[in-house]
C-alpha cells in the first residue's frame, strides 16, 4: 500500500493531538498551530488526491488489524481529499482573516480554547468526509455540534448565548433523529460499514419483505442531516447563529460545518442507501421541493433584513436550498451541481462575512445598512472583497457562482417534469439575489454626503488582505477555469457510483 494512503488517518489524528496540546499553549502559539495544521492537512489531502488519480479507484483503509466487516474503516476516492483540502484552506483563511475580530470579541484567557475548537472542527470535518462507517459518522457529528457551539458562544453577548441554545436544540434534534435512523438500519441489516449496508439494503429492497422500516430509517437519517444543515423550514437558527458570532466563526459555520453534513448526506445517498433505492423512495422529491421553496424564501427573508450580517446569513439559507434542489434533481448531474455549489459556497460565504465585518468596523460598528452608506470608501479592500463575493453569489460570469448556476440549469434540462419549476426557481432566486446584493453594493459604494475620512489601507490589515486574496483568487480562478474542477468532480462521482 502506498504511504499516501495513511495520510487521511494521520491528518485526523494530528488534528486531535494538536487540539489536546493547544489547550496548554498561549494564544499566539495555538493560532500558529492551527494555521500550520490546516496547511499540513491541505498538503496531505493533495497527496491523497494524487494517489486517487493515479490508482483511479477508491481506496479502503482499514483501521487496525482486522479485515473488512470487523473494524472501522476510512474510504476515499477523488471527492474526499478534494473537499478536505478545500475545507482546510477555507478554515485557514477564516482563522487568519478574522484574527483581528477574534481579539476584539473574545477575552484573552479563552482565545487559545478557540483554536482548540477550530482544530477539533477540522478533525471532525475530515472524519465526516473520510469515514466509511455510519456510527463513526454519528460520533463525529456530535463532536462537530459541540465544537461549533463552542466557536459560536465564545463571544460573550446575550444574543450569541441565545443563538447557541437555539443552534444546539436544532442540532441535537438532528443528531437524535440520525441516531435512531442508524439504529433502525442496524436492526434490519446488522451492519454499520457503508458497503455492507448498501448490499443489505439493496437485498431488502429487492426481496418481497416489508420496506416500511427501511424507508423509516432512510427518512430519519435524511431528516436529521437536513435539520442540522439548515434546509428550509429548519433554517430559523441560521440568522442568529451566523449573524452574531464573531466573523471567523460565522465563516466556518456557514461555509464548512453545514457543508460537512451535506457531504455526509450525499455520501449516505450514494454509498449506503444506494442511488436506485434512494431515487425510487420519493424522498428526493421532498428534498427537491423544500430546496426550491428554501431558495425563494431564504432570498425573500434576506431582502427584508436591514442588518448586513443577517442578510448574508439568510442568503446562506437560500444557498442550502440550491444544494438540496440539486440532490433532489438527479443522481449524476444534480449531485455534480450540488457538489460544485458546496465548494462555491464554502469559498464565497466566508469572504462575505469577513469583508462585511471589515465594512462594519469601518462604519463605527453599526451593522445596519443606514450606517454602511459609503463604507467601501472607508475600507476599499473590504469593499472590493464584498463586491467579488456578492457578484459570485448573484452568479455573474467569471465567478464560481455562475458555473454553479449553469450546472444546475444543465442538470434541469435532462428532466421533463421538473425543468420549468427548476428554471423558474433559479431565475426568481437569482433576481432576488441580484436585488439585495446590488442594493447593498450601491449603498456601500455610494459617495453621496460622504464625510472625508482617511480610508483604511490594506497594509494596516494584512491578515484580512491575505485571507481575502486567497478566497478571491480561488473563486476567480475556479470560476474562469472551471473545467478541470468539473472533470475532477465528475470522475470522483463516477468512482463512487
Amino acid at each position: 500500500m502506498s504511504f499516501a494512503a495513511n495520510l487521511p488517518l494521520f491528518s485526523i489524528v494530528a488534528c486531535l493531538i494538536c487540539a489536546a496540546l493547544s489547550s496548554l499553549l498561549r494564544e499566539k502559539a495555538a493560532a500558529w498551530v492551527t494555521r500550520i495544521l490546516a496547511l499540513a492537512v491541505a498538503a496531505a489531502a493533495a497527496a491523497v488526491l494524487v494517489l486517487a488519480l493515479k490508482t483511479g479507484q477508491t481506496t479502503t483503509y482499514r483501521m487496525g488489524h482486522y479485515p473488512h466487516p470487523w473494524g472501522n474503516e476510512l474510504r476515499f476516492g477523488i471527492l474526499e481529499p478534494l473537499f478536505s483540502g478545500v475545507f482546510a484552506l477555507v478554515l485557514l483563511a477564516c482563522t487568519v482573516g478574522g484574527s483581528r475580530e477574534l481579539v476584539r470579541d473574545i477575552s484573552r484567557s479563552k482565545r487559545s480554547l478557540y483554536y482548540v475548537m477550530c482544530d477539533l472542527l477540522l478533525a471532525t470535518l475530515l472524519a465526516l468526509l473520510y469515514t466509511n462507517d455510519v456510527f463513526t459518522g454519528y460520533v463525529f457529528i456530535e463532536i462537530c455540534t459541540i465544537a461549533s457551539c463552542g466557536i459560536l458562544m465564545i463571544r460573550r453577548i446575550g444574543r450569541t448565548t441565545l443563538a447557541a441554545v437555539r443552534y444546539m436544540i436544532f442540532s441535537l434534534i438532528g443528531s437524535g433523529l440520525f441516531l435512531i435512523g442508524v439504529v433502525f438500519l442496524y436492526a434490519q441489516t446488522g451492519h454499520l460499514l457503508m458497503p455492507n449496508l448498501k448490499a443489505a439494503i439493496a437485498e431488502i429492497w429487492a426481496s418481497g419483505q416489508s420496506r416500511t422500516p427501511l424507508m423509516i430509517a432512510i427518512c430519519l437519517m435524511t431528516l436529521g442531516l437536513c435539520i442540522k444543515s439548515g434546509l428550509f423550514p429548519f433554517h430559523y437558527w441560521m440568522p442568529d447563529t451566523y449573524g452574531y458570532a464573531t466573523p471567523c466563526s460565522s465563516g466556518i459555520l456557514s461555509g464548512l460545518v453545514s457543508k460537512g453534513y451535506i457531504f455526509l448526506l450525499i455520501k449516505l445517498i450514494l454509498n449506503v442507501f444506494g442511488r436506485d433505492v434512494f431515487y425510487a423512495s420519493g424522498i428526493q422529491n421532498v428534498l427537491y421541493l423544500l430546496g426550491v421553496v428554501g431558495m425563494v424564501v431564504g432570498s425573500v427573508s434576506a431582502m427584508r433584513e436591514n442588518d448586513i450580517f443577517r442578510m448574508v446569513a439568510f442568503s446562506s439559507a437560500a444557498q442550502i436550498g440550491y444544494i438540496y434542489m440539486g440532490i433532489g434533481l438527479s443522481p449524476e448531474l444534480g449531485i455534480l451541481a450540488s457538489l460544485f455549489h458546496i465548494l462555491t459556497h464554502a469559498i464565497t460565504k466566508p469572504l462575505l462575512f469577513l469583508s462585511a465585518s471589515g465594512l462594519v468596523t469601518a462604519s463605527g460598528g453599526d451593522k445596519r445598512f443606514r450606517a454602511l452608506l459609503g463604507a467601501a470608501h472607508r475600507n476599499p479592500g473590504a469593499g472590493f472583497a464584498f463586491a467579488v463575493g456578492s457578484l459570485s453569489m448573484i452568479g455573474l460570469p467569471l465567478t464560481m457562482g455562475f458555473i454553479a448556476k449553469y450546472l444546475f440549469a444543465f442538470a434541469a434540462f435532462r428532466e421533463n417534469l421538473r425543468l420549468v419549476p427548476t428554471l423558474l426557481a433559479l431565475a426568481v432566486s437569482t433576481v432576488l439575489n441580484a436585488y439585495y446584493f446590488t442594493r447593498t453594493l450601491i449603498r456601500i459604494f455610494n459617495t453621496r454626503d460622504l464625510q472625508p475620512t482617511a480610508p483604511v489601507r490594506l497594509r494596516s490589515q494584512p491578515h484580512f488582505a491575505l485571507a481575502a486574496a486567497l478566497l478571491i483568487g480561488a473563486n476567480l480562478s475556479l470560476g474562469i477555469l472551471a473545467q478541470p474542477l468539473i472533470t475532477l468532480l465528475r470522475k470522483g462521482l463516477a468512482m463512487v457510483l
Partner: protein
Amino acid sequence: MLDSLWNNRIPAAAVLLFAVGFTTLLLHRNLLKKIIGLNIMDTAAYLFLASLGYIAGRKPPIITDGNTDPAAYANPLPAGLVLTGIVVSVSVTALMLALTLRLYRRYHTLDLDKIYMMARDEQEDET
C-alpha cells in the same frame, strides 16, 4: 398486530420514550425540561440499540470459562455502541446546562419564549 407489539415490546417502549423526549426537546418552553427531554430521547435510542444485542437465553459476552462458542453469548457490538453513546449524551448535557446557567444569569428566566422577546428588545436598545 398485538402479537408483533408483544414480540418487540422493548423497542416499542423505546420509540415511545424517544417520541416523548423528542417532543419535549423540541417544544417545551422550559430549558431545563428540554435538557431532561434530550436525555430521555438519547437513552431511549440506546435502549432500542441495546435490545438489538439481546438474545434470549444467552449469557453476557464476558468469556469467563474459556468457552468461545459464539452461540453461548449475547451480541457485544450494540453494547459497545451504546457505551460510546452514553458518554456523548452526558457531554452534551453538561454543555446545555452550562448554556442554561449563562442564559439565566443574563435574562433571569428559563422560559425560552420570554428570552427571545427580551433579546429582541435588547437588540433594538443597542442600536
